[in-house]
């Protein structure tokens, strides 16, 4: 495999709050190969959006800060860059689109101006910027791009605005596109169009995509690899097909179980009891222990490590001996529970 485009190693992003330090992203590691799509899934509040923002160092100041970890992009650690130099990366090599198209565009500037600005910010020419903007708008299937260029954000629908965001992201042909729940705010019909558009563009521009979502359906279609995050950590990461076929981590299994599908027709959906622990003080052991149906003795006290359990599939669960941190005696659950 070619050298990975982006390698995130043990990334920690913390927040100073009156209630203490919130460890929103607590040791996340993953990597994306060029042209590949990695999706990160998890309930809201598990830190997936914060991970995305940390890559571009857009952590909301002054409360948030990156504690430690490395973000290697084409081998260069972005965290070593000074704030000014990082500017050259943002929007040129790594682009990002957000969840709320309604508020993500500046209401008082025309669409054209905001598109051109992306180019000009990286020493592009304004005149070429307008042409490129028009091409891209056409490319994202917006009819009459010239009119849209001169109109204001409030004159467009949610779907069209998301297309503009995508066009804006592609102005500088980025190597990596981070999409933070791009379709959540849109209704279903528009979602499909946007997703297929993204897939098309990804192939055309040979762009890697980091998709942040909580919708397992979307992830299934789009992603090559999938990572599941819970309580600030990646609890399972694997090629998409393999994950859907045999989820290893109990949390992933519960997620799939709570999906309405033909098999469970008529039965009520499985719900997880309990609630996500307080990010200000994560429990010591496995953070899912309190709610995990397969909980057993060491879970509340031992903090599992993300370890390979089945080929490229890794999981952070003590059910699998590899997940025990070094120096801790390996135990196994008394009874075998196989789903």
């Amino acid at each position, binding site marked *: 495999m070619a050298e990975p485009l982006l390698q995130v190693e043990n990334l920690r992003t913390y927040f100073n709050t009156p209630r203490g330090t919130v460890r929103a992203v607590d040791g996340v590691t993953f990597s994306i190969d060029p042209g590949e799509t990695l999706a990160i899934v998890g309930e809201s509040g598990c830190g997936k959006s914060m991970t995305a923002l940390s890559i571009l*160092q857009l*952590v909301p100041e002054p409360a948030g*800060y*990156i*504690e*430690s*970890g490395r973000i290697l992009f084409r081998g260069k650690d972005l*965290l*070593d*860059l*000074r*704030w*000014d130099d*990082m500017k050259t990366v943002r929007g040129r090599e790594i682009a990002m689109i957000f969840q709320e198209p309604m508020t993500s565009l500046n209401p008082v500037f025309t669409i054209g101006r905001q598109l051109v600005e992306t180019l000009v910010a990286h020493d592009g020419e304004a005149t070429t910027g307008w042409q490129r903007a028009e091409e891209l708008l056409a490319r994202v299937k917006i009819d009459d791009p010239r009119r849209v260029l001169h109109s204001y954000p409030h004159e467009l629908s949610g779907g069209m605005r998301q297309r503009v965001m995508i066009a804006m992201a592609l102005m500088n042909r980025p190597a990596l596109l981070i999409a933070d729940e791009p379709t959540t705010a849109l209704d279903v019909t528009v979602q499909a169009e946007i997703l297929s558009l993204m897939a098309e563009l990804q192939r055309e521009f040979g762009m890697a995509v980091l998709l942040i979502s909580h919708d397992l359906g979307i992830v299934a279609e789009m992603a090559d690899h999938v990572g599941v995050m819970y309580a600030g950590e990646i609890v399972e990461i694997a090629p998409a097909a393999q994950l859907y076929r045999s989820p290893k981590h109990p949390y992933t299994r519960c997620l799939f179980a709570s999906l309405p599908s033909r098999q469970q027709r008529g039965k009520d959906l499985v719900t997880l009891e309990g609630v996500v622990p307080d990010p200000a003080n994560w429990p010591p052991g496995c953070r899912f222990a309190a709610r995990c149906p397969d909980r057993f003795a060491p879970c509340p006290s031992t903090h599992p490590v993300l370890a390979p359990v089945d080929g490229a599939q890794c999981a952070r669960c003590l059910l699998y001996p590899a997940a025990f941190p070094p120096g801790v005696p390996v135990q196994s659950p008394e009874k075998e529970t196989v789903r």
Partner: protein
Amino acid sequence: MRASLRNPLCTAALLAAALLLAGCSNNPYSPGETEKPIQFRYMIGDLRTLDPSNSYTVNEAAVADVIYSSFYKYHYLKEDPYELVLNLGAEEPIREPFPVTETVDGKPVQKKGERWTFKIKSGLKFGDDPCFPGGKGREVTAADIAFAFRRMADPRLKPRPCPVLAFMQDKILGLDAYVKANREKKKANQPIDLRNGVEGLVLDPNDPYTLRVLLNQPYPQLRYLMAMHFTTPIPHEAIEKYNNSLTHYAVGCGPYVLKEYRRKRHILLEKNPNAPAELYPTDGDPGVAEAGLLKDAGKPLPLTDKIIFSFQKETITGWNLFMQGYLDSWTVRQENLRQVMTPAGEPTGEMKAKGIELRKAPQPSIRYFIFNMEDPVVGGYTPEKRKLRQAIALAINSRDFIDLHNMGQGIAAQGIIPPGLFGYDETYKNPYRQNDLTRAKQLLAEAGYPGGKDPKTGGPLTIYFEYIELGTTMIQFAGLLEKQVEALGLKLEARAWRDVVWQDKVDSGKFQMVEYGWVADYPDPENFVFLLYGPNERPGPNHSNYKNKEYDRLFEQMRAMDNTPERLELIRKMRAIETEDCPLVYTYHDEDLLVNHQWVSNINPHGVANDLLKYRRVDGPTRAALQREWNQPNFWPAIALAVFIIAGSIPAASVVRQRRHRKVRKEG
């Protein structure tokens, strides 16, 4: 901030700051103006009117009397006694008895009248004005003076009627009828003809420079009226062109012309090219030469080209301007007195340093307390009531009022006639103005209030004093009166009113005791003793409604007499009567304190005359030099501010650099 962005902003700011500091000088006049021979005067309030027929206040006269010259003027350097000299007049008027027949309610009556013949110089010209054909001022004739007399009877005068009309209305033949006729015409709003119509004003068809005035009774005061601006020649063309409104516009034959009058801004007077040939006097009271007042003797007047009156509504800012040299002179107010004069009456060091000169200007005026003679408690003519008033008078010490209220400026008053006027007697000591507490207490006991106690109520007798609420000075004044009266055991309650309400109370007699003042209209004792003349009762000037048959009889006898020993005897008799009745308690004669800069010369504050500015000379170059020297801008606060901003921005800049170069990941 990005370097490129910061540069234009910073350079713009620095440029602006440099421009502001360079162009700064606090000279309110345009550059170079203070070098020229121009007088820089000031006005406290907006002038109500400059119209010669009804302008009345001292401020208005100071401007009007240098625009309008009259038949007579007061000799500039003679004040002891005041002397009239000819101005427009060619020779002294001829005054001869003249039998006159006057129709009094239908019947012709023979009267022992009088005829005055006035002859004015020929060749006098009005100042140039568009109202004259071709814009050039035409020659002044006696008809213009007659016109002025008739204009005084014009009911349409704004904003007030002519104040001296009442003095002449019943004396000049036919004037009374003319006044009544004009009023009817105004009601029926028919046109009023001011160019003829009064029997007593006789013009000679073949001698345009002579005017004869017929009177139905001897009236020596007419001489003084011919020195006031009411009788200055008024061109009828100006009245017709500016529809009878000379309030803020002027056409006269005096030394100056009114060039510009901007309401609430400034008044600009300029030398009148057609001015009559007037010369600076060559003699005066003894000691005048030593005072340096004869340096310009014999020179043609006026001695300065322009006079600018700027409006200084706030005395504070005005005083600052004077101290910075931007005003030539200033009438000292109570709050600046300490800065001007040492206790011994000498100018303070600061004044000497700037070469500022101090001048006292006695004013023919009188301040006094009034008892309401119709008040049940303090009024009445019974011996007890008289003793009560005399006791209070004895308790009031004028010296205290002069020191505290007027800061030592003024002469303690013994009688109603101020110094400098006929009938004033320095040696006279008013028996009830010698501040003798024991005698006062004794008189109070005789008045039926032993120890100040009111037998009816058992408590101290309360007397109410009403005054105008004008800030701390008036409260201080009332407080001092309270302390003096209560020394007798009486109780004085001082109450403050808005000036509108206070004036109403005084005019309608709803008061026991108030303080009042009177300034001379003309230098004749009649203008003061008439304050106690019965028929002048409220709302006339006799506010205490004092009525004494004998006093009135003596007054009617003396009012039209010349200044002869017999008149002096009558005045003494009247004084004896009113001193016993004691309706008024005289406190002091006001004295203004003037300060002038060293570059102004020929300063002689005259008691009565108001045309003083034409005698003043100004040394422009020294003034401009001193102004520059005294007004060096003080730059250290600006520099300190700049340093503070720069010092403040350094840490800020470092924060910016640190922020831009920070590594997101915490070190280590």
